[in-house]
């Protein structure tokens, strides 16, 4: 056995051990992540769904098309001519006040980039699922470079660890989006989530309706009866005011997200936070920072190491600086923070490290960045063990090579 490889099977979480929880007014189903996302859109009563296929998102829009054409869902579903047009149509329907949902991935999201800005700066509520994959050269596998590179478009971004979390986060996202009039992107992992079946608790429609009522018109929509013009040329003396108002609302996302999650827990029974801290306290020497499904893998590995904790980022944009600092409140100053990146932003640091550095500015933690799992490479327990081994033995006589930034599966 490799020196940093250990038997991890006995550390995996077991539902049976914890006892089987039955959520009232839910149905237990086995579902792929993409199906869960489509189910969430139906439960949220999305009324307009412009669609365009792209691997590995396609089964979301296929599912929605099936739900609409069979009459299970009351929505207008339109097969568009591109993702650019999908997002433009989403924008048009949101301007008139419909609850909009769509899904995309990788190149589709890159192609829609222009429209993402327009939707956010028009202050239009909508929820969109992105199944993360990188850019060309062609790769359809799990990678968060697509959505992370859209972080400055003005969209709120959540990353789901499980497909249950994706379904639940979509429901919460409509509340946040419609309250603040800021669009939300819910990101799930390609294949590890999109095409992997999990046990999922699907809430009853009435339970969702109580939490998320039907969309009401605010009076700001284009309604044709009272003529308004929106989006026309805005001179400098006015433009700033729009950004200022946006900025003020963006600053409230972190608290609102916590509020909505708390209400969600009371209503549905499942708890979510902007960030999730596992085993972070005065005794913690190392904290892994993760997003999405590899968090589950890492959570399994760290159960063997009482000195290792984990910080999972669920809300990524706006970056939950307050929640991160609260989660690390008891972390000793000499602890190590290690970011696990499933993205490459064309920069020295990966996206997580960049944001963590900003959030922890003035703190003196030693921080390391680990590129792992880009382009869909599996981040197995072995990879996590390698990261922990390097950190643990960084100053040992063995002379383990550890840089500030590491490509864990390439460099030794």
């Amino acid at each position: 056995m490799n020196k940093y490889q250990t038997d991890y099977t006995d550390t995996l979480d077991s539902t049976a051990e914890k006892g089987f929880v039955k959520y009232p007014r839910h149905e237990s189903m086995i579902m792929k992540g993409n199906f869960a996302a489509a189910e969430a859109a139906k439960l949220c009563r999305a009324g307009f769904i412009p669609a365009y296929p792209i691997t590995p998102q396609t089964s979301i829009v296929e599912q929605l098309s099936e739900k609409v054409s069979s009459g299970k869902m009351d929505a207008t579903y339109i097969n568009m001519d591109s993702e650019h047009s999908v997002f433009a149509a989403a924008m048009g329907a949101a301007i008139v006040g419909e609850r909009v949902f769509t899904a995309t991935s990788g190149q589709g999201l890159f192609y829609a980039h222009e429209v993402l800005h327009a939707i956010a700066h028009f202050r239009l509520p909508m929820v969109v699922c992105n199944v993360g994959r990188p850019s060309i050269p062609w790769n359809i596998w799990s990678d968060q470079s697509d959505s992370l590179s859209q972080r400055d478009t003005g969209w709120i971004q959540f990353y789901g660890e499980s497909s249950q979390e994706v379904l639940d986060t979509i429901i919460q996202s409509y509340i946040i989006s419609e309250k603040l009039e800021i669009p939300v992107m819910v990101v799930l992992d390609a294949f590890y989530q999109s095409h992997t079946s999990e046990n999922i608790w699907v809430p009853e429609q009435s339970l969702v309706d109580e939490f998320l009522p039907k969309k009401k018109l605010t009076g700001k929509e284009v309604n044709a009866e009272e003529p308004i013009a929106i989006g026309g040329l805005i001179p400098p003396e006015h433009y700033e005011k729009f950004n200022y108002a946006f900025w003020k609302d963006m600053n409230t996302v972190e608290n609102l997200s916590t509020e909505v999650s708390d209400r969600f827990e009371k209503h549905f029974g499942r708890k979510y936070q902007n960030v999730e801290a596992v085993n972070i306290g005065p005794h913690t020497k190392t904290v892994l920072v993760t997003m999405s499904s590899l968090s589950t893998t890492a959570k399994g590995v760290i159960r063997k190491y009482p000195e290792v904790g984990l910080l999972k980022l669920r809300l990524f944009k706006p970056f939950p600086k307050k929640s991160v600092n609260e989660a690390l409140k008891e972390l000793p100053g000499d602890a190590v923070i290690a970011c696990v990146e499933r993205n490459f932003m064309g920069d020295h640091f990966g996206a997580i490290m960049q944001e963590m550095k900003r959030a922890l500015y003035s703190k003196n933690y030693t921080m390391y960045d680990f590129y792992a799992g880009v382009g869909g490479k599996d981040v197995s327990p072995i990879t996590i063990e390698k990261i922990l081994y390097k950190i643990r033995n960084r100053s040992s006589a063995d002379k383990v090579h550890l840089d500030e930034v590491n490509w864990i599966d390439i460099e030794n």
Partner: protein
Amino acid sequence: MEPLYDFVIKDEKVHPGALSCRGCGWSLLVRHLASIMGEETVYVVPASCFSIIAGPYPMNELKGSVVHTIFAAAPATATGVRAALDRQGKKDVPVVVLAGDGGTFDIGFQSMSGAATRGENILYIVNNNGAYMNTGIQTSSATPFGAVTTTNPGPGYKKTWPKDLMGIVGAHNIPYAATGSLAFMEDLRTKMARARDTKGFRLLMIDGPCPPGHKTDPALSITIGRLAVESKLFPLFEIEHLNYKINHYPERDCPVTECMKLQGRFRHLFKEGNEHIVKEIQEHTDKTWSRLLALEKIGQTLEATV
């Protein structure tokens, strides 16, 4: 004497103070269009001269709703607007795209084709002034052969023919597509009303006078427009489900030079030694007209045999 056709607008559906250049076609076009569409209309406007003419924030030239949108996707935005209005029981509220030739022939081409293919219930107006005029006269794929623009300057004048947009749009088998000219107002207003009353994807392409871009006298916009039709540079016709119908057969033999010589963008073609270029344009124009006649005939023949 009573005029043959009274095109004076009695009930203006636009506010005074449009920001167009003198002699621009957009204002006249939109005044007539708005008077026909009525106030309960949603206009979707991609980047174009009309984005400016419609008025900067917080103004609105139109007594109707205006959604300013991105350059490449006005028909897609209109698709969303249409779907949402339909869901809210407003199926009778017209959704009208007001785009330029750049936004239609080039950057918005796919989005327009998509909307046409889906049969979206949208009226698409393209004001074809033959270049990116809002950015200062750059070549588009609607720019005429021989014209000078800032990106085809001097001896580098445009040496390719414009895209046959009407042929392409017509090939989508849409219920109604037509060309129109501000110099033929009765024809244009009739087409606007017909387009308004037709369901599905409809498109009107209007010849757009542009004095700064075409280097013309603003007072001659209508004259030049009439000569464009008479010289067959801009024929008036309709396409209804693949069937062509010509609406105006010029009575006299009007050479293209009559129209072109009034436009500074073609001035270089009248210099000694360039006669062959003018001849080429005349031949191409004649051929295009013959083709149009043939297309009209095909429709008539097919109809007679069915």
